């Protein structure tokens, strides 16, 4: 997940990314969410939306680098490569990979893993859920009187991938200047622990343990969070005296401004239930679109709480051409392109079929024709087996 998002970003920024799979297939092909998909005139098959999303913009080759031909192929690709991105293997990189790294000291080797390459937890197994747990996010998410809850997706892995991309490009810039490659070691636990706003200073400056606060923004902000309205939920961010006052005037409750219970953001947080009860009639009489437009026009921070299906129809994202349409997945399929504009948007390329570009990329790497023939045959057989 981490390495795959890292390389998707690089590919989206214009890098030439070759996704190297073993004959057993990329593990993301077995990752949820799954969609049963039927193409005209073909047997139905199940595709992984994670693979289709994260594999986009890349070429794909099947190379088993622990065979002599595979090692030669990886070596040929490494000659002109800038970065080699892999997941940590327990006990160090496989022999074929280790040899390539040694033979090409210009390479930047980005290694992603749950806990990094060393340290007492390095060999521990991990899951998306345990990633949330060890990052400190799990404990602070959810209602105060219920068990903590994980984030609804494997987003720790994405954050680690982003962190790896920063390290990878940084080391590549350095290698470009000096000719020297290096290892860039990124563990999800540290990548995520790096992403707290005040959790740690709250402890190191005041000795306070940060706790869960449901849909409110602990420790000292209210109303900042999700509130119910007529047709769903809105998020309101009335923080700071000026915005709080603009909010009170907008909802036609100017008396709240001078109410001693709500004098400061901290007071409002401490009296959150009372405040929410007073706001409820105004919110429940209005739909979220109306509320958000009305408040934003008055410079009060607000947004609709959307589901994944609803966000596809969001006018802002549509106006910015955010979505790409992977036609091979049917007319309704939409996925994010590159989430920032850096020159011309990249041309969309769908996630490769297993080993789809094996022959093409090895030819470009100028591998001996006989080896290409043998590796292509292996790739084709593996592709058929993977279905």
């Amino acid at each position, binding site marked *: 997940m981490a390495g795959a998002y890292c390389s998707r970003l690089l590919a989206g920024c214009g890098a030439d990314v070759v996704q190297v799979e073993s004959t057993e297939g990329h593990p993301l092909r077995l990752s949820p969410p799954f969609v049963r998909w039927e193409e005209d005139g073909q047997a139905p098959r199940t595709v992984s939306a994670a693979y289709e999303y994260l594999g986009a913009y890349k070429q794909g080759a099947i190379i088993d680098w622990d065979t002599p031909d595979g090692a030669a192929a990886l070596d040929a690709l490494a000659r002109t490569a800038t970065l080699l991105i892999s997941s940590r293997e327990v006990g160090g990189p496989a022999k074929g990979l280790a040899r390539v790294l040694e033979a090409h000291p210009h390479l930047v080797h980005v290694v992603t893993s749950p806990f990094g390459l060393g340290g007492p937890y390095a060999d521990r197994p991990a899951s998306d859920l345990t990633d949330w747990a060890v990052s400190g996010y799990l404990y602070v998410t959810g209602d105060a009187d219920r068990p903590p809850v994980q984030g609804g997706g494997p987003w720790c892995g994405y954050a680690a991938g982003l962190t790896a991309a920063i390290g990878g490009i940084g*080391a590549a810039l350095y290698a470009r200047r000096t000719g020297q490659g290096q290892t860039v070691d990124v563990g999800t636990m540290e990548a995520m622990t790096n992403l707290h706003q005040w959790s740690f200073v709250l402890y190191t400056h005041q000795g306070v343990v940060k706790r869960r606060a449901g849909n409110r923004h602990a420790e000292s902000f209210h109303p900042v969070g999700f509130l119910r309205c007529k047709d769903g939920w809105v998020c309101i961010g009335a923080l700071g005296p000026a915005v709080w006052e603009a909010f009170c005037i907008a909802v036609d409750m100017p008396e709240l401004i001078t109410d001693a219970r709500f004098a400061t953001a901290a007071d409002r947080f401490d009296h959150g239930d009372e405040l929410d009860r007073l706001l409820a009639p105004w919110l429940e009489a209005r739909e979220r679109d109306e509320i958000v437009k009305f408040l934003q026009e008055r410079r009060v921070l607000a947004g609709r709480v959307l589901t994944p299906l609803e966000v596809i129809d969001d006018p802002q994202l549509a106006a910015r051409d955010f979505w790409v349409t992977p036609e091979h997945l049917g007319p309704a*399929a939409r996925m994010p392109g590159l989430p920032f504009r850096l020159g011309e948007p990249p041309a969309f390329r769908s996630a490769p079929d297993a080993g789809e570009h094996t022959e093409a990329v090895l030819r470009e790497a100028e591998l001996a024709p006989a080896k290409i023939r043998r590796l292509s045959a292996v790739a084709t057989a593996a592709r058929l087996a993977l279905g």
Partner: protein
Amino acid sequence: MTVLAGLRVLDLTLAWAGPLAGRFLGDLGAEVIHIERPSGRAGPRHNDARPPWQWGELPAPATRAAVYPDDEPGERPWNRSGVFNKINRNKRSLCLDLKHPDGAEVFRRLVAVSDVVVENNSARAMPGLGFDYAALQAINPRLVMLSMPGFGTTGPYADWLSLGPILEAASGLAGVTGYPDGGPLKLGVAFPDAIGGLHATVAIMAALWEREETGRGCFVDLSQQETYAAIGGDLILAASMLGRDPERLGNRSAVHAPQGVYPCAGEDTWVAITVRSDREWRAFRSLLPTSTLSVGSFDTLASRQAEHDAIDEAVATWTRTQSSWEVTERLTSLGIPAAPALTNADLVNDPHLASRAFFVEIDQPDVGVRRFPGFPIHFSETPVREFRGAAPLGADNETVLRDLLDMSADEIAELEAGGVLRSEPRLT
């Protein structure tokens, strides 16, 4: 040597998302000049009714008021905010009034000798000051500029204001987090800021790579709504193909069972467990007291998913008598993913993070020595080891203008006298 040595960045950021990008660049060795506003509290009204510099009131320069050491604002509270100091280390501070013509001129001269401008103000702020990319590129064609308003610089919401939880809501992802019997739920930390700041850093680095190829800088338009939706690309793609939203799974998994967060001995203490295979389940099951799981063997994923509630009860009975660390040790030694739900205090004292030197001590002017999170990327050849505390407001006014712009002491004194340069906030 660090990977960005020799690079100069002008950081006009506020709050968290933008400053995170500036901090990454500073940690990586760039010279980051944080240009801060001289304005004081945002609202002119009710000054007397509220203690100044209280957390949550967010005076500008925003977040210079939050989490003081020992809850004590001290003489210069603007230099004592733990939140601000955490996110603005490895930066110099230039407190400059960009709305004053002389301040704007200083900024333009700095642009001429810098590589990057990064800002996360509202979309109208920079064009309003006359600092859109076209204007700045005319001064310095090699300049990389990244703007990251909440909803991007174009489109019908370009003018909207945002903060992390709003972007969490507007990206579609808050809808999938939460208890199965509840509504949408926000994460306990404003994660979209973090994700926006990470993407911004990647985009700036990619633009720097591009500049090496072309010799020219470019403008990056980044929408934090988009960057957050991007980490849900798999969920959104599946929803679009299926025509329906994903189920809210709470702590469960679509492909592993049992998975959950279970109570342990001690108050509000929890352990997260994921059983990924039939083999792991057999190993796990042998640990559970036989009396708690009398019916069925649950040897297949489908059977475990069908009886997940009953299995959860049995697992909780077992975990409740142990510490979260005991459960973790037992299960991980069998190859089963398990981990305590770590608190902020646990993490600061965590032995793994300690062995990787993650938390670092930083001597902070007006604060003293405190521990802060360090740097998450381990470079074998260019390690990040330098952590300079956040600069007090305006601490580098003089050196920046003297060293980079060759300004004389008299010229600098004149700007100070005119309030264009400040080392204390201007309270309005």
